[in-house]
């Protein structure tokens, strides 16, 4: 079982396809759940506390806007945990849950720079492209399994 980061981190299709293959998708909802079950946060839905931009300093410099650092404090641990990653490119406007283009760029940059296997896909718009996407994901996951077995 490999822990695979998906981007966008709340994707239904990517997470489901990985779970079907028996792997663990690292999704943002799990991080959010941890956050909202934290008894110290008493003013929901303001789920970002003043601690978060400080935690985000691990992933982004102090000059980076606090919004990016606050977001990175939630996404960052997922990137740290990732053993592989699947990134979808060319998605329509509004796709994904981050709501910040710079955070998206930084997260994808960190995933690419981490030295883990990364599969980059194009957002499918028709049936043939979807066949290719599903085949690519399956091949990628199978290759990860083979590598894990060799080790």
């Amino acid at each position: 079982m490999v822990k695979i980061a998906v981007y966008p981190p709340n994707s239904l299709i990517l997470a489901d396809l990985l779970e079907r293959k028996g792997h663990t998708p690292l999704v943002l909802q799990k991080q959010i759940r941890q956050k909202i079950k934290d008894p110290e946060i008493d003013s929901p839905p303001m789920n970002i506390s003043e601690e978060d931009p400080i935690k985000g300093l691990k992933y982004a410099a102090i000059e980076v806007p606090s919004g990016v650092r606050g977001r990175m404090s939630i996404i960052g641990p997922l990137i740290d945990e990732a053993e592989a990653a699947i990134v979808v490119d060319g998605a329509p406007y509004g796709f994904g849950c981050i709501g910040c283009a710079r955070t998206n760029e930084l997260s994808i940059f960190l995933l690419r720079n981490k030295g883990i296997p990364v599969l980059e896909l194009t957002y499918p718009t028709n049936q043939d492209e979807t066949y290719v996407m599903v085949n690519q994901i399956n091949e990628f996951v199978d290759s990860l399994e083979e590598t894990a077995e060799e080790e």
Partner: protein
Amino acid sequence: MSQNLTMSPDLGKEDWDPDVITRMIFIGPGAHVSEQEVVTAFHMLGLPLTIKNTCYGSMISGKSEDVYKAIKEIRKLDPNHIFTKERGFAPGDPRRCRGHRFGPREGFHQMEKEYRILGFVSEALENPKDDVEIEDKKPVDVDEFKKIMNECLENKE
């Protein structure tokens, strides 16, 4: 916007339990089961779960062990058309539930976009094809672009 800011919700014991998880079950286009059938199947499992019927499928909440067991069973109804996804907030949580606030629920837009290609994914899972080739989209040739541009300019005059 003040209507959208709810007060601290009155959460029960289960809501604070880190082992309690929530999952959304989506029924893709062309499925052989209905939302109601899925919900009935969940009830018939007899597991201690909170089950909610929704427009896209259903939502279940409970101890992670029970939830994963239920999902494994429910997928058997229609493996290629039933999709599942994690959810951070419990069903009916006032911070997300539309019964307590205005506007679409956060996460709805992503769901709407993915639902559009969910039918293609189901088809790809049902009838896998290996030899699919996609034509590379190429930009318009410069000469042709010039020709079209000149035609447009002439028509304008």
